């Protein structure tokens, strides 16, 4: 288990705690199935070690947030989950296992293409393709060979509704996606990810480039999506983690410092470093 759960005496509470709104008593089901099991994982970029001995389980149909200061390894860990790190020369998992539904995804027999169909991803910088909205949504299905127009139309509508974007764009499906606002573009990327019906959606700081209103919309969306998908979100914004996640993992210098219910992490953290970070005293 997590090494740092050994409870030191909590340090004195901060002088003026930042008001943090926490998701109202998220019904954390302790019996929920662990979809992703990360087991003693070490990860290296060439010679430099980015993750040390990470162990955590991610529950099905919950939102799990990774927080921590820049360079703490949270994005690296996220990108291990759909093997996007394979694209970087010299980057690899050097120890431990990551299992999704019990299958070690770094097993040489695992088909990365299949893995990525099941583990979708939304990036920090929204990256709609310079194609029409319709072509963006159907991209994932088309490369799988789906040509049936009726089926594609249906998926476009379902995905856009799922991303709360249908009413805004239904009249301009065949216009370029680059004409949309920043927030719409990011929701389009979410719609594009859910169009291929993954089990898990990874979000790498999805709101870092968005204004507060667009951010609120995406957060609302995340809230709705967790009924259907397991969501892992990396965020720099602690309020965001507090508002929309069920469980939160705090990373620092490539180590998992603390992992617990979001409420616990924000209201009653076990580790003084976590406490200092969530109360805004560093990072």
């Amino acid at each position, binding site marked *: 288990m997590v090494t740092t759960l050994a409870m030191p005496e909590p340090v004195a509470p901060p002088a003026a705690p930042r008001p943090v709104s926490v998701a109202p008593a998220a019904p954390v089901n302790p019996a929920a199935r662990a979809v992703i099991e990360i087991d003693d994982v070490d990860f290296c970029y060439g010679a430099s070690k980015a993750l040390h001995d990470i162990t955590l389980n991610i529950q099905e149909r919950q939102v799990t947030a990774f927080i921590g200061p820049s360079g703490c390894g949270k994005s690296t860990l996220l990108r291990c989950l759909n093997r996007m790190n394979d694209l970087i020369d010299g980057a690899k998992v050097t120890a431990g296992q990551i299992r999704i539904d019990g299958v070690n995804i770094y097993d040489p027999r695992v088909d990365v293409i299949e893995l990525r169909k099941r583990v979708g991803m939304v990036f920090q910088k929204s990256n709609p*393709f310079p194609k029409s909205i319709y072509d963006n949504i159907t991209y994932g299905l088309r490369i799988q060979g789906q040509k049936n127009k009726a089926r594609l139309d249906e998926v476009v509508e379902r995905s856009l509704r799922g991303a709360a974007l249908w009413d805004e764009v239904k009249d301009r499906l065949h216009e370029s996606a680059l004409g949309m606002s920043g927030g719409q573009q990011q929701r389009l990327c979410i719609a594009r990810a859910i169009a291929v019906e993954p089990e898990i959606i990874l979000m790498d700081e999805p709101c870092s480039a968005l204004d507060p209103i667009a951010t609120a919309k995406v957060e609302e969306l995340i809230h709705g999506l967790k009924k259907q998908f397991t969501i892992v979100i990396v965020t720099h914004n602690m309020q965001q983690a507090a508002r929309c996640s069920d469980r939160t993992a705090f990373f620092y210098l490539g180590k998992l410092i603390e992992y617990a219910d979001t409420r616990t992490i924000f209201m009653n953290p076990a580790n003084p470093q976590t406490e200092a970070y969530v109360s805004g005293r560093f990072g």
Partner: protein
Amino acid sequence: MSAPTTTAAAIFNRSTPAKRVEQGAFWLLRLATYFVLLSAATIFIDIGWKGGRVVFQKQAPFINVPFLTEAPETLSVFEFDGKKMALGDRAFRQFSAAHEEKMKHVAVETYAYSAGGIFPNIVGTVLLVFGSITIALVLGVLSAVYLSEYATDGPFIRFLRLSIVNLAGVPSIVFGLFGAGLFVLTFKFGMSLLSGWLTLAFMVLPIIITASEEALKAVPKGYREGSLALGATKFQAITTNVLPYALPGILTSSVLAIARVAGETAPIMFTAAFVMRDELPWQGLSKWTDFFFQGVMALPYHIYNVASKIPQNEYTRDVQYGTVFVFLFTVAAIAMTAVILRQRLRKKYKW
């Protein structure tokens, strides 16, 4: 700290050594630019004026149609009944047949290639350009995709890149001899379009590979990652979501390549270009594959010939300037099609 008034005076119009150097440097830069401009203007005005007089004429249809539609002929100049005559081959033969008796005593001077037109040369150059650019683009884009998307950086790939860059520095005459040795003699393609295409394609490959690689690198990483994250294979990501956006940049490289391919004489003089050939490329083919195994006339080689292989006089000068003028125009027209194509693609894939 000096008084405010002296400070104010110091701000205005004080000449310091640094400012004088600045002024001098500014003029040096300006003069250098003007000098370049002047040289270019001199060349273009000279060609435009003297060549324009050959290609255009005062009477309708205002363009010297025979010059653009006929093959080169030998010009015969002679004095007949006190009149100075200058006739091309066919006209001269008709004239001599008509005045057979008198012509026996007339001294005739002949000048090669100075009559007729340059149509076969235009056709040959256009064929050489399109063929070699097609081959170079296909080979070049495939290699660029491999180098920038698939190959993992290592000593071998670095050596490969270095070789490609070095290839760009090889003089064109060396490519000509290489093509003659490999395609003409070893592969027995003969002096043919195919030999010329391949030789020219190899000559411009470095330009196309280097520029295509840059164009591929300029496509944002997010498009690749976005595709891969949706379960695309690398090949699918490249063909659907990287290569289309790189096409405008690749076409820019092909504009440079077109100018080089069209202009080079050395690579084609041993591989594809004939000084003189009576048939046009589509005439007298016994089977369609013969098309690729025939030599052609080409504008740059024609210029070389009329400028250095025949005695110079005022008649040859006309054909020289006219050919150069048409040559520049042809290259510009081909390059323009690439530019227009690029503009269209840019509009289609804006990012």
